[in-house]
């Protein structure tokens, strides 16, 4: 037994070393950076330790803007994308003809490059000297005033970002939900049918509880993904997100490290630590809620 234990540790060692060097050490390092005040990257010296970095970023309007943007994005995109995916997956599993075709179409955004999708959104939404963008043309057709979605009012930009995020995360969710729906034993539906159960009742009382583990998995990963939102905002609004007032927390961290010459690893680390705790809290809440509603 003792011998076996030693062997087990030996086998785990390669993975352990990699984890230690590339995960655990940097994590500790980030934490140390975040409490070192006035850290100078070039000389590797600091003026002391404390919580000044946290205080600084919490008073930084750019950070607060980033937090607000991220939170809005999370609150809007996660429920809508999950709900829509559920609807589409349910629809897909109820039809027989053309199911594969639709499945492929819905999956396309997943295999498309973010920046390419950004270009498509530009064509849809951006106002240029030559055209107002397709969405604006549509709006005009209905007689409503045009809006500059990319360089215009905040709500318009936020809307475009949310649509973009929802659109890009849905394929994966649809894929997972379709397979979850397919794995529900047909006998449950037969039993419900013999008992004369109506469609909605079947969905709420049988289908949804049966796939609840998958739904909660998607909600939790959806939250985490949305909190780490960055590249989509860049694809839409360019790299100077602060100027566009569309920065996100991850974008803020990146800017602190590299943007405009960068060189503020302490602030970046403090922001990263804050983001970590926000995600941790939300995930714990999610898990607590799911424990009450998931039956497996």
């Amino acid at each position: 037994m003792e011998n076996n234990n030693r062997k087990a540790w030996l086998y785990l060692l390669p993975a352990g070393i990699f984890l230690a060097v590339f995960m655990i050490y940097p994590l500790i390092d980030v934490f140390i950076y975040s409490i070192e005040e006035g850290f100078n990257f070039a000389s590797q010296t600091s003026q002391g330790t404390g919580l000044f970095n946290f205080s600084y970023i919490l008073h930084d309007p750019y950070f607060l803007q980033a937090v607000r943007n991220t939170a809005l994005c999370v609150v809007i995109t996660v429920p809508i994308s999950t709900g829509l995916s559920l609807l589409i997956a349910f629809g897909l599993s109820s039809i027989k003809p053309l199911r594969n075709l639709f499945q492929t179409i819905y999956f396309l955004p997943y295999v498309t490059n973010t920046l390419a999708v950004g270009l498509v959104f530009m064509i849809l939404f951006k106002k240029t000297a030559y055209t107002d963008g397709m969405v604006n043309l549509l709006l005009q057709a209905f007689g409503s005033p045009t809006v500059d979605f990319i360089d215009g009012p905040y709500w318009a930009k936020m809307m475009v970002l949310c649509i973009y995020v929802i659109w890009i995360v849905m394929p994966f969710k649809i894929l997972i939900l379709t397979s979850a729906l397919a794995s529900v034993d047909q006998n449950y539906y037969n039993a419900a049918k013999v008992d004369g159960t109506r469609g909605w009742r079947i969905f709420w009382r049988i289908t949804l509880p049966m796939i609840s583990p998958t739904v909660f998995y998607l909600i939790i990963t959806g939250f985490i993904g949305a909190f780490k939102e960055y590249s989509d905002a860049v694809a839409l609004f360019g790299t100077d997100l602060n100027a566009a007032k569309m920065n996100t927390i991850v974008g803020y961290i990146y800017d602190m490290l590299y943007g405009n010459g960068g060189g503020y690893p302490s602030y970046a680390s403090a922001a990263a630590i804050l983001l970590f705790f926000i995600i941790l809290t939300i995930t714990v809440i999610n898990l607590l809620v799911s424990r009450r509603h998931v039956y497996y």
Partner: protein
Amino acid sequence: MKVTIENLTKKFPGRGRKDPETIAVNDFDFEIPSGELVGLLGPSGCGKSTTLLMICGLLQPTEGRILFDEEDVTNVPPEERGVGLVFQNYALYPHMTVEENIMFPLGNLRGKDKLSKEEMRSRARQAASLVQIDTLLDRRPKELSGGQQQRVAIARALVKMPRVLLMDEPLSNLDARLRLQTRVEIRRIQRETGITTIFVTHDQEEAMSISDTIVVMEAGVVQQIGRPQDVYDDPHNLFVAKFLGTPPINVFEGSLKDGKILIGDSEVFEIKDLAPDPAAHLYEGPDAGRTAKQAEESAGAALRRDGVKKGPGRLAKDAGSIPVWVGIRPEGFFLDEEGPLVCSLKGVEVMGRDVTVVSTHPAFQGETIRTIIDAQSGVDTTKSEVRYRVRPGKIFVFAKDSGERLYGAGE
């Protein structure tokens, strides 16, 4: 509720041009009297589950009609037929408690049938106490044993007071002991409720033990319908004879000549005693206790049914020797030093009440001949051979090509 099935046929289309369509059920005709327990019996793939699903309404027949009493329900959707279905894997909703599971069908009722929560609860409790699970109402299916889950499934099927109860392999997921217990239980519940019940099984013992009537099916075709004992004593063809009975019937390659049944060159039986064997009730076989009168009745019924077609008269006239299959029930042998059937002895299995003698014979179809002999008669295990005489009524002759029975059951 009387259930009538007329010319029921189900064809499944083939997959593509080269794959022919499958005829799962072929021209099934049957009338189930009200309040009976009927077992659909057959090997897997014989169409018995398809038949059940058509009666239930989950499958639409290709041809034919299904009637409940006089009402044609062929095109009625399952929920309006008033059937209860117990699934092979029970299909209990894992996220609901036992009580919620049993109440679920009641929650579907609408309009004038709508029940209050209290009524639903009391109906569920009633159904639960019928199957004796009243103490488990707050558990989830995962926390129940297989047998308990089975009962919940039956309670859920019974709670809406169905006109017909259908069960798909109700016992196949239970272990051997529980199976015995549960089949008695199913019989009791069926008797208590008086609901016409149809169940599907591939286990002949299960079907024989609890059914009022069994329907033996193979390859979508009904082979024989009758009371379990009658079907056993009077199988219409080789398939039915082989399918019923444990140990199974012993089949030999033999021939029929001048009213005599030959296995190899030895003459094992002479077809002369048309009257039922008066000694049929005397031996201590598995169906001991069956009176001579009953035996006479069933033999008489067989004669009336088969009439001239299979009468021994026709056989007697056949001068030449016809090759046939000879089937002898395991309990149809008795030891006789001078017996015509000489088998080489392989061993003896003691079962207590009786012994199973394992032997071989060159004309035998299969591995070993298994015969059941009264424990008292004693087999000399030092010998290398065992000689048998055959009991009348336990030997059957089947046509080589069609498997149809030519002689047997006291004809």
